[in-house]
């Protein structure tokens, strides 16, 4: 007990951020909303909204490195918790893809020293928990839960047992059971939709062999070689206090919550605070076109570009570009392909932000009778028109609004706040990065948008997937061919 140091913010990365914040403080949601309103309604700046009910975000780092974040919100007698590890599938060792997810399944569904197999969900359910989630990504793993405020200790007990008392309970039988569950889940995902494998085909083109982003797309049998030693090794590297952030938001007293966290996690050993070296993938050296047959009614086209990672400035600008291509107020691509040329029936555009890299994706459903090649030609024509188009500042500001409004409105929920704080803490070293996130969308001009399109969405460095209807195609889509043309631009 007592290992935590009040207000001793020792985030290695967080300190850098804090220095950039005016006054070094943490903005409340109310101030944040008022800041964003200023983008659209300068008069609103004078009236911060809701600032009084959202109190400060408090944080500590235990001596063993565990980052702890607490925010009090007493409106309903619930507490939302989010535990996130700065470690994911990318750290599965060579040839052992899937170790991270098998480890996660073992922690959740298997036994730890003091928690019998199956008791994780059973005990949370008995306590009235909701929103019980777990996730394994390329560079992070996370668990979330909302409990009655009087049961705050339960998830702390469960999670600390996973972190400190895992290896004595895990055995080969348990690993085999979790591998079987992972196989079943991935088989259902890949076979469950006619085009479920498109992401996998695109990633094979965008990322070189061995790149961590490719490991995300597990085929069911990928986990065959994962064994107990691999799981224990992964757990020792990753499921440690030094690589974890624990966030609690809800009807708690911060000092009591910190004390509880200290009780359950304070004596756990720090663990190795080492990260693998990571680097981004090089942009495609040209245009790769993949022909895919799928059991769909109409042809489809998916175009992908490799783009900057999450929370970078250009990542934000590409969010806005996506809204200009297919937003609610402005939808240049939709207007051109669906309304004007009637060559397509649906268009989507989005920046799929990722921790290592992102993908910008445009997906187009062909109109009946149109081929994928015809749709691609029309899309390229539309993009040429867009490159020459002068966007109005009003269109851009509306695209910014569409990008941010749901993201910020959702923070009224304690569950969403806990999740968001944990994500920010893992990605940038500080939980309350909301204002900085929003600041990326300031000062975007027509010139910025044009430059962003030119730089990140070139026609000759991308992956194009042409989907042709074929009733007999394998579930999830079947790769039938590939062409590559080297880029002509530098």
């Amino acid at each position: 007990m007592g290992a935590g140091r009040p207000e001793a913010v020792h985030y290695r990365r967080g300190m850098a951020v804090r220095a950039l914040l005016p006054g070094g403080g943490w903005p409340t949601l109310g101030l944040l909303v008022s800041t964003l309103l200023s983008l659209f309604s300068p008069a609103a700046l004078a009236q911060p909204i809701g600032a009084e009910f959202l109190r400060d975000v408090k944080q500590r780092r235990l001596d063993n490195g565990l980052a702890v974040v607490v925010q009090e919100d007493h409106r309903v007698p619930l507490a939302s918790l989010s535990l996130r590890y700065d470690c994911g599938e990318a750290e599965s060792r060579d040839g052992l893809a899937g170790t991270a997810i098998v480890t996660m399944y073992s922690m959740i569904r298997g036994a730890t020293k003091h928690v019998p197999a199956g008791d994780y969900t059973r005990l949370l359910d008995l306590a009235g928990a909701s929103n019980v989630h777990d996730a394994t990504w390329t560079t992070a793993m996370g668990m979330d839960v909302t409990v009655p405020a009087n049961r705050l200790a339960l998830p702390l007990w469960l999670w600390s047992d996973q972190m400190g008392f895992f290896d004595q309970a895990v055995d080969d039988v348990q690993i085999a059971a979790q591998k079987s569950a992972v196989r079943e889940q991935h088989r259902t995902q890949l076979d469950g939709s006619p085009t479920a494998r498109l992401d996998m085909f695109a990633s094979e083109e965008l990322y070189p062999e061995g790149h961590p982003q490719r490991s995300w797309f597990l085929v069911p049998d990928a986990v065959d070689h994962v064994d107990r030693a691999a799981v224990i090794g992964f757990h020792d590297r990753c499921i440690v206090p030094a690589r974890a952030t624990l966030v609690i938001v809800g009807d708690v007293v911060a000092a009591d919550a910190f004390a509880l966290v200290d009780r359950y996690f304070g004596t756990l050993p720090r663990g190795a605070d080492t990260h693998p070296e990571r680097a981004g993938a090089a942009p495609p050296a040209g245009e790769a076109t993949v022909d895919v047959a799928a059991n769909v009614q109409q042809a489809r086209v998916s175009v992908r570009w490799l783009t900057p990672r999450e929370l970078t400035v250009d990542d934000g600008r590409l969010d806005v570009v996506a809204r200009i291509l297919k937003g609610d107020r402005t939808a240049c691509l939709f207007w051109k392909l669906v309304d004007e040329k009637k060559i397509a029936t649906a268009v989507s555009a989005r920046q799929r932000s990722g921790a290592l890299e992102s993908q910008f994706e445009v997906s187009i459903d062909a109109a009946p009778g149109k081929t994928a090649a015809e749709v691609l030609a029309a899309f390229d024509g539309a993009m040429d028109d867009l490159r020459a188009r002068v966007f109005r500042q009003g269109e851009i500001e509306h695209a910014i609004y569409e990008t941010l409004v749901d993201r910020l409105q959702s923070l009224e929920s304690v569950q969403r706040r806990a999740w968001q704080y944990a994500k920010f803490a893992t990605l940038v070293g500080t939980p309350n990065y909301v204002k900085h996130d929003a600041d990326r969308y300031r000062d975007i001009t027509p010139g910025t948008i044009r430059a962003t399109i030119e730089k990140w969405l070139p026609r000759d460095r991308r992956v194009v997937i042409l989907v042709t209807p074929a009733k007999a195609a394998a579930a999830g889509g079947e790769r039938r061919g590939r062409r590559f043309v080297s880029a002509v631009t530098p």
Partner: protein
Amino acid sequence: VKLARSAPLLYLACACAPAAAPSIAGSPRPVVLTAPEPPAPGARSAATIPDESFRGRPPEAEEAKPFQVPSAVNLQLKNGIPVVVASFASPNVAVRVVARGGLSDVGPEGVEVLGMMTRAMPRGTTTRTMGALQDAYASLFMPSPLLSWWADAVVVSAAAPADKLRELVDLVADISLHPSFEAKEFERVRGQHATWSDRDSRDGGIVAPRVLRGAIFGGHPYGAVEGSGQRERAATRAQVVALHERVFDPARMSIVVTGATTQDEVVAALEDGFGSLHSRRAGQSVAVAPATPESPRPRLVVVDSPGAAVASIAAGVSGPGVGATDGEAATIALEVLADSAQGRLSRRLREDLGLVSGLSVSWYRARAGGILGWNTRAATARVASVLAQIDREVRAFASQGPTEEQVAWARDREVLSFASSFETAASAAGVFAWAAATSRSADDVGQTPARFSAVTADAVRSAAARYLDGDRIRTVVVGDWAALRTSLTALGWGRIEVRDAGFRLAPQGGPGATR
């Protein structure tokens, strides 16, 4: 450039300084991924960690904190429209306009007209184009309003920062009362949506729960199966205009306002927005759905999806409506049976047998009835086994009932789930709107936690025996009929109906019904 431990700092510098673009991820670099060597075996063994006595068993619950539903006040506008106001701390204020009727006005065959009405209403009003509406949302920094139809009502939902109540009400009133249904835009929306419906008709996850409504309720309004592109194309503007005039009448409307506001502010804003509206059809009665009948459909309905390797399954039974004395007990019975984590079906099918990767509970209660159901997916070869196991488990559960412990956790969780609805102004407005749609009072909403807390194990056993009767359960499978036919027929569940995604029977000579 290798990004090792210093990478996050570079990352931050980029993210925090908009002028500093381009970002670090923009320059070409080789991929380097070198996982560190693992620590020596046993270096972090649990044996080396102090095993304090408190770790031996789960922590005890502290004294429960009471949850009070925010008190709601019932008001009435001068033209008679009832208003519910629930004030509580929030950065936002939410408004829901509830117009009772809809499905009961058009019947199951008219569901596409109802759907078109909700899609066309926000596309422009008599004084604002759609662009002007969107600009107004942006100026308030509020999300676009949502329009939806429920079993008993049509609902307009919107939320905005708390100090924008007047502007919010003005917009919501305009959309609710003065949609232009501009002809060209109407046709555009109708055509696009019909195309999307055609596309979605191949998505089992969407189709199965829709078709289940038809399988359970048949020709009753609640049996409407939306999603037929053909029927959507046939919906006319005149039908939509007439339906709007009929449904959005003050005699049918209620308004809910929640969040950081006061009664005085609400009344002033609502009188401005809705106070001048007077009934265009004086004396008209609200269309109320009749009591739901026993399903005339066979136990198993298949929607053919040729070539699908994985089938989507939705199953359920006609359940109690709002106001039924055993409504809460039936809900708890269903949770014990089909909860995604602890439910009897989930544990058997996922944990014990590994037949499915997940199963989720699905229920709703409307004025004249509801559905108690569940959804899952299974590989084609396993579908018959999954259905047989579910049938076995449901029958066993209906005869044995739940344990006291199971009832306790399901009951507590329902109360807490209800409490979490009051986390945000928008979700709280949804709770009161549902009450308004089913002609219940705000006071009745306040009694919800007490009603769940009072449910006994005996009441749950009775509800399980009454509703979760294996012979009454209807199951919809969206999958490859050619591959499923033999194994499903071997279940011996009687006649199997093959229908399309719009709930039309398969044509003669097609895949056909079988026995």
